[in-house]
C-alpha cells in the first residue's frame, strides 16, 4: 500500500518541486498552504508522514506539530520539519515540539527522500 504524505508549506515554488518529487517516489501526496489547512488535511486524510514548514500563516509549523501530538488520533503521525530557521535553538525547539526529524533549508532533494524513507521504515 502506498503511504500518504502531507506537504505543508506556504511557498508555491517549493510545493511544486516537493509534490513532483514525492509523487515520483511513489507516495500519495496531499498539499496544505497554511497551518490551519494542514491540520484539516491531517484530520481528513490521516497521512503517515507530514513535511512541515515552520513559517506558515495562521499557524506555524511548531503549533501544528504541538496540536498534532496532543491529538490521540494523530499523535503517531511522523513529522519532518523543514525550516529556514537554521539556528541550534530553532532545531532544539522543533525537537521539543515533537518533530521526528528537522531539515534546514536549503536541502538536497536526495537527502530529503532518504530522510523520509528512513522515517517510514523505522520500526514503530
Amino acid at each position: 500500500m502506498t503511504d500518504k504524505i502531507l506537504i505543508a508549506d506556504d511557498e508555491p515554488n517549493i510545493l511544486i518541486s516537493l509534490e513532483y518529487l514525492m509523487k515520483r517516489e511513489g507516495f500519495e501526496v496531499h498539499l496544505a498552504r497554511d497551518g490551519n489547512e494542514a491540520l484539516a488535511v491531517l484530520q481528513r486524510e490521516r497521512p503517515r508522514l507530514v513535511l512541515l514548514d515552520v513559517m506558515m500563516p495562521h499557524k506555524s509549523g511548531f503549533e501544528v506539530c504541538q496540536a498534532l501530538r496532543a491529538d490521540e488520533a494523530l499523535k503517531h503521525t511522523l513529522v519532518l520539519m523543514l525550516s529556514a530557521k537554521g539556528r541550534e535553538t530553532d532545531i532544539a525547539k522543533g525537537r521539543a515540539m515533537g518533530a521526528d526529524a528537522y531539515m534546514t533549508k536549503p536541502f538536497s532533494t536526495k537527502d530529503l527522500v532518504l530522510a523520509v524513507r528512513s522515517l517510514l521504515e523505522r520500526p514503530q
Partner: protein
Amino acid sequence: MRRDTGLLRAMVLAGLAAFALLALYTLAVGALLGSSLAPDAQALLGTALGTRWPLLVMACLALAALVAWAVQPLVRRWATAPARLLEEAQVLLRTDAQRSLRSDDGAPVVQALARMLNELAQQRDQLRQDMAAQVAQASHGVAQERNRLAALMSELTQSVVVCNLDGRILLYNNRARMQFRALSAAPQLADGAELIGLGRSVYAVFDRKLVAHALDSVQQRLQRGAPHPSAQFVTTTRSGQLLRVQLAPVRAVADGGAEGMPADAAQALSGFVLMLDNITRAYEDEAAQERLLHGLTEGSRGALANLQAAAEMLDDPGLPPGLHDRFVGVIREESQAMGRRLNALASQNAQGLATRWPLEEMLGTDFLQAARQRIGQTTGLRTSVLAQDEALWLKLDSFALLQCLGYLAQRLHGEFEIKALHLRLQAAGGQRAHLDLVWTGHAMSTETVVSWEMDPLAAGQETSSLTVRDVVQRHGGEFWFERDRARHQAFFRFLLPLAPQAEQDQRDAAALPGDSRPEYYDFDLFANTESSHALDERRLVDLTFTVFDTETTGLNPAGGDEIIQVGATRLLHGRLLRGECFDQLVDPRRDIPAAGIPIHGITPGMVAGKPDIRSVLPAFHAFAQDTVLVAHNAAFDMRFLQLKEKATGLRFEQPVLDTLLLSAVVHPNQESHRLEAIAERLSIAVVGRHTALGDALVTAEVFQKLIPLLAEMGIHTLGQAREAAQKTYYARLKY
C-alpha cells in the same frame, strides 16, 4: 596703676601692722614695768607719761613708718613680684600671646623662676608651631592628592561618578557630565546640571532599586571574599538612552589599619563608584548587524531551497515538458527575487557593514602632525601639508595607519627616489574623509600598487604581519592610486571614516575652556548621611543651597509682569560651585517695558525664540531639587514662582532663606540691606550685576559670608536661621 595701688596698700598695711605691734609691745613693756614698780613710783610715772602720751604714740608711729619703709623692698621682692609673675604666667597659659615674663624687681629666685617660665613658654610655642606646620603639610598633601585624583578623573574618557551610600554624588568627571547632558530631558535648558552635580542624588537618573540590587550583589561578593567585587547592569533612561553601568564598591577605610580588622569592618561600604557607558549606538549598530545577518541567512534559506529543489527536479530525465517550464520559471523568479533582496539589504546596511575593529577618534590635524613625524623618522624626508580641513575628527586605528604611511613613504623614497612628500586631508562627503599621500611626477602601474598593497608592512627595523589592505579593511575604508595630470602629481588615497557628528559636537562642548575641574568633588559627602536629621535641625554648613535670582519685566507679578531671566548657582558645604550654574533667558510672551531695559539689559530681541516659562520652570525645578532656596529679597522672586504654580503644576516647596533678612539679623543697625551695600560691607567684588546669574553669584557669596557671622550669634541650623530672619524688622514688612 593697679600695681601702684597694690603696693601702696601693702605698705599701709605693713605700717599699720608694725604700729599695732609696737603699740602692743609698748603697752606690754609698760605693764611689765608698772608691775615691778612701787605704787607711788607707778603714780609718778603715770603723771610723767600721762601728759606726754601723744609723744609716745608719735614715736611709735614714726618707728612703725620707719619699719614699714625698711620692709617695703622686701615685700616688693618677696611678695609683690611673685604675685605679679603669677598673674602674667596665667595670662600666658590661657592665651597664646607671645610675650616674655620679667621680674626685674623680684628676688633672684623669683627672677630665675621667670626665666624658667619663659623657657617653658617658648618650648610650648615651638611645639605648637611644629604641630601647626605638620597639620598644614598633611592637609596640603591631602588636598594635593585629591586635586590630582580629580585631575586624573577629568581626563578619563570613561565616565565616572562616585556616590556615598545615599546616592549623593561626591565626585564626577567631565565625561560623566557630558553623558548626563545626553540624558537630560531638557539639555539645552539646564545643560544636564539638574542631573549631575555635587550632592545631587544619582537616583534622579537611575532607578534606586536597580542600584540597590547591584549594591546587594556587591555585598554578597564581598562577603564571599571575591577579589574584585563589582556589579553591572544595563538600564534605559527616561530619554531612551541605553546605559551600561558598572558599579564598584568604595570600602570604608578603617582607622587602625587593615591588619587584625574584623571581617565586617573590612566589608563596610561607604559609597560606590559608577562607571557609565552609553551603549545606545553600539547596541543599535549591533542590532542592525544582527538584522543584516538574519536577512542574509534566514531570508535566503527559503529561496535557496526553492531553487535547489527546482534545479534538482530539472535533472529528472522523465520530467514532462509542461513541468519542465514551470521549474525553470521557479528558478528565474527566485533568483531575481534574491538579487533584489540582497541589493536592498546591502544599501540599507552600507554603514552597518563597517568592520568591528575598535577605532579611536582623533582630530585630523593631530593625525597629520603625527604622520609627518613618522615619515620623517622612516625616510628622513620632510613632508608638508597641502590642505587640511581643520575640524575633521577621524575614526582611526592611528598606530596601524601611521605604519602604512611610513611604509609607503619608504618604498616611494627607496624605489622611486621620491624626494618630497605631501599630505592632504579633506572631507569626502558621506561621513568619510580622503587622506592623500602626494608626490610630484612618477606614476606607477596597477601591478605595483597591488603588490605594495599586499606586501607586509615593513618600515625601518619594524616589520608587521599586516598589509596596507588589512589596515584599510580595519577602517572599513578603501585605498587606491590616482594621478592628477594637470599638476603632474600622483597620490595614494585612503578613504577613511569620520567620527559621527553627535560625538564631534560633544567633544567640542567638552573642549570649551572651563576652570571648573576642582569643583567636581567633595569627599566630605562620604561622612554625610541625610536621614540623620530633619532639615530644620541640620546645620547650615551641611546643607546644599540653590542661590537664585530672576530678572522680570516689572515689579508687579499680579499685574502681569513676567520673568525674563533665571540664574542660579549652588552652594554645597559652604563651597560655591561656579561650575554648576543655571542661566536661562525666558520669553515672557509680552513686551518688555523700555524703562527696565537699562537695568537688566535684556531687550525683546534677546528673548525672542527663547523657551517660555512653562518649559524653563520645570528645568529650574529639577535644578533646585533637594536643596534649600536662597535669594536676596526672596519674597519677590518666590511670588513670581508661586504665580506660575498653576500653569506649570510645579510647586517650590523647599525651605527658603533670604539674604536680605539674614543680613538684617547680623547687622541690625545698618541702614541699607541692598545687595550692593551688603556686598560692599562684606568686601565682595561685584561682577556682572543685574544679570540673573551675576546677581545669584553675588547673593551666593554674600550668603557664604553670612553663615559664619550667623554662627557667631549662635545661629547654626536652618531652623534657627529661619526663626531669626522672621524676627527682623524687615520680615514684618509685607512685600
